[in-house]
């Protein structure tokens, strides 16, 4: 290598052309190594994608097959209109509504806790907390998210329910209220951290634009930051709902296994997930109609969470487009 810069040189053009061509066509040894590496990585990524796609197809196939068998015995109209769910009794009814309402009731309670608190936590963390405070609070939230759900289940059953019973004497031992409250606390970190990410992505220049018009901090937060990050926040909410709908341990432990068609959160109910746990833990023989019910319920659950996740994805995508 020469140390001083090369002077302007015009090499004989035929050589230079050959040289440029040699580089551009990428046929040197380093190029071949690089190309092999690139295609190896590509193959690996493709394989990884294939595994998850294949798994999904497998799951959908199993679900669909057993659900199809189920609906050969039970009419889909009964499934969607009957208000009793008693497949394990002699007098059999196959109405999904008791399970569905239980899921809706407990998820609603959970969201009533998780949404406002999560949003407030996100605003506090992203807009108000000093970096030091945020650095202490965030790990605590993450610990909350890392607690196994079975622990939350017993927390609801053995701590929250007795506590609530002091104020609401008619509260049953198994009930939707305490399961919902505890589920809300469990989901809170998810809502808080996703919403906080959305708020942090709002460019500082927008905030400054509002401050420069004479806005106070609260006005900046409510009129600029929250609206600007709304689709991100909505996506977080929808994801949280889908998490609540699919939650299993808390409801199986603290909510009971009584498929009742009611909106009263003070009594025992059975969610879709809890029913699936109940049947899979029992000794229902493979291939019977009782066995097939869990796939019908599973399919219902799958459709609901899939729709929610797709919705959330749409919102997130819209949100990303705004600031790129």
């Amino acid at each position, binding site marked *: 290598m020469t140390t001083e810069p090369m002077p302007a*040189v015009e090499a004989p053009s035929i050589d230079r052309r050959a040289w440029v061509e040699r580089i551009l066509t990428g046929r*040197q040894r380093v190029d071949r190594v690089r190309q092999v590496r690139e295609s190896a990585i590509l193959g690996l990524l493709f394989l990884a994608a294939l595994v998850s796609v294949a798994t999904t197809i497998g799951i959908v196939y199993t679900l669909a097959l057993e659900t199809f068998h189920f609906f050969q015995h039970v009419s889909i109209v009964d499934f969607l209109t009957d208000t009793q769910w008693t497949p394990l009794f002699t007098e059999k009814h196959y109405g999904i509504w008791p399970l569905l309402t239980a899921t809706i009731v407990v998820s609603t309670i959970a969201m009533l806790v998780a949404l406002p608190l999560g949003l407030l936590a996100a605003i506090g963390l992203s807009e108000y907390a000093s970096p030091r405070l945020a650095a202490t609070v965030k790990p605590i939230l993450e610990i909350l998210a890392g607690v196994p759900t079975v622990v939350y289940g017993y927390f609801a059953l053995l701590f929250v329910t007795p506590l609530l019973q002091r104020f609401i004497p008619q509260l049953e031992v198994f009930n939707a209220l305490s399961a919902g409250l505890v589920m809300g606390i469990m989901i809170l970190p998810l809502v808080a951290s996703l919403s906080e990410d959305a708020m942090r992505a709002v460019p500082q220049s927008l905030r400054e634009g509002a401050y420069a018009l004479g806005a106070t901090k609260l006005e900046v937060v409510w009129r600029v930051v929250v609206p600007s990050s709304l689709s991100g926040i909505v996506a977080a909410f929808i994801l949280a709902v889908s998490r609540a709908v699919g939650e299993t341990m808390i409801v199986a432990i603290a909510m009971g296994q009584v498929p009742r068609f009611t909106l009263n959160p003070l009594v025992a109910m059975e969610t879709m997930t809890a029913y699936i746990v109940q049947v899979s833990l029992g000794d229902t023989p493979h291939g019977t109609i009782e066995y097939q019910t869990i796939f019908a319920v599973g399919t219902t659950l799958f459709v609901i969470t899939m729709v929610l996740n797709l919705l959330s994805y749409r919102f997130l995508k819209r949100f990303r487009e705004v600031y790129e």
Partner: protein
Amino acid sequence: MSDPMTTLTTAQAARAEAARGTGPAPIAAGMDVEHLSAFYGRFQALDDITFPIHPGAVTAVIGPSGCGKSTFIRCLNRLHELTPGARVTGSVRLEGIEIYQPGIDPARVRQLIGMVFQKPNPFPTLSIYDNVLSGVRLHRPRLSRAEADEIVERSLRAAALWDEVKDKLKAPGTSLSGGQQQRLCIARALAVEPLVLLMDEPTSALDPIATYRIEELIWELKQRYTIVIVTHNMQQAARIADYVAFLLAGEERTGRLIEFDTAQRIFTNPKRKETEDYITGKIG
């Protein structure tokens, strides 16, 4: 362009280096753009652009905002196709070799045709030293310490930044001022030893003094590199350009070449009415 001082020995040295795959000292090379059209999905951003890019000269691309200047310059190093849905038709040649033909490695095209962006974009996790070497390391993974030091010093000197940073090469690249960051990005591009340097409004984010230093630098660089610069600043184009291409977009927002000529003729005696209106500030 023909340099009377050309000696066969330096040319041979350059070729010998090239043969070793270590890259030659930059030798100014020309480009030819013919019937170039560019699309974003179904939207056509450029239509049928044809003009030569002369070796060892500064070609300025001017025109009002949104006429496709950035799109154009990004077609020259095959960066345009990285935008999802984007497409190019027509021909771009470097030293007579079509860069859009099958069998051309786009990564190698970008090695020979460097680029500097509007906003300085040094890599935030790297020091000044490592920023300069970031491109070189892609092409030469096994770089000795001495070679690395030498490339860093040579590139920073070429970018007129050496004296300001030689005592803090380990500081993060982002700790520099805007103008220094932009010169760091130029050094980073030069370190790869390109033949052509593309610059997309390199001074529009800088103050007048930093702008002046970059313009001075461009003057020096054109001794050894072919430079294409996008600018919306007429004075800047008049100060530094040897050739000027004027683009304009019509109603459908598709950019077309209105006029290409030497800077002198464009600024003193343009042939087209639109050019005159633009450089005298009547449009744009």
